[in-house]
């Protein structure tokens, strides 16, 4: 079965991203496909390349990056939500005249249409948020 996942909260403050990750991993382990994880609202902060959590804590952005790498999961940060919150990839940084970019490996920035498309194409869309 094809799953789409929506994550509405950022890392660490709320459990949503952890729950979504555990769900995605369990789905993949069972042989399902997680075809896209869409990050919206503060959820876009899960895609930061600049997080440095303590050694003894999980590294949420890295967990997602690894999942994307190993299982070909499409991690999409909503462009409108990302711009509001200072999450920029190289292109967006250039376009907006910013000196740095901060999107972690495996994540890409795209429009809300990717969320709607996930809703259309996935057999189930599961939402994690506050």
């Amino acid at each position, binding site marked *: 079965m094809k799953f789409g996942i929506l994550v509405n909260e950022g890392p660490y403050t709320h*459990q949503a991203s952890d729950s979504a990750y555990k769900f995605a991993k369990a789905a993949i382990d*069972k042989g399902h496909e997680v075809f896209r994880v869409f990050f919206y609202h503060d959820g876009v902060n899960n895609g930061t390349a600049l997080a440095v959590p303590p050694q003894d804590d999980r590294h949420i952005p890295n967990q997602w990056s690894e999942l994307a790498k190993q299982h070909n999961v499409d991690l999409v940060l909503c462009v409108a939500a990302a711009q509001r919150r200072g999450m920029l990839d190289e292109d967006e940084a250039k376009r907006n005249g910013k000196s740095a970019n901060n999107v972690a490996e495996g994540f890409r920035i795209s429009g809300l249409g990717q969320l709607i498309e996930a809703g259309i194409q996935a*057999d189930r869309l*599961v*939402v994690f948020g506050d």
Partner: protein
Amino acid sequence: MTMLHTVNKSPFERNALDSCISLAKAGSSILLTEDGVVGAMQGTSHSKKIEEAMANISFYVLGPDLKARGLSESNVVNGVKVVDYSGFVDLAADHESVQSWL
């Protein structure tokens, strides 16, 4: 259609469980996750809601979230089934759609 509803809010803090129960159709399922798991415990001022709704709706609770909070599986309301993340995936797959009561 059968729907899986997920509730991640404690009934002591928010009304998500109330709204979910009042809008879930007979034959659907409700999975309690994150802080929502406290709603599954027996002997609380909210236990009755689940006990009554159970006549028409199947209730599940996410075991890892219970365990993390020091809540014992043996103290959940009778008839609430404990599942792990793999069980959560099965529930999502076995129902026709999933609604999260955020």
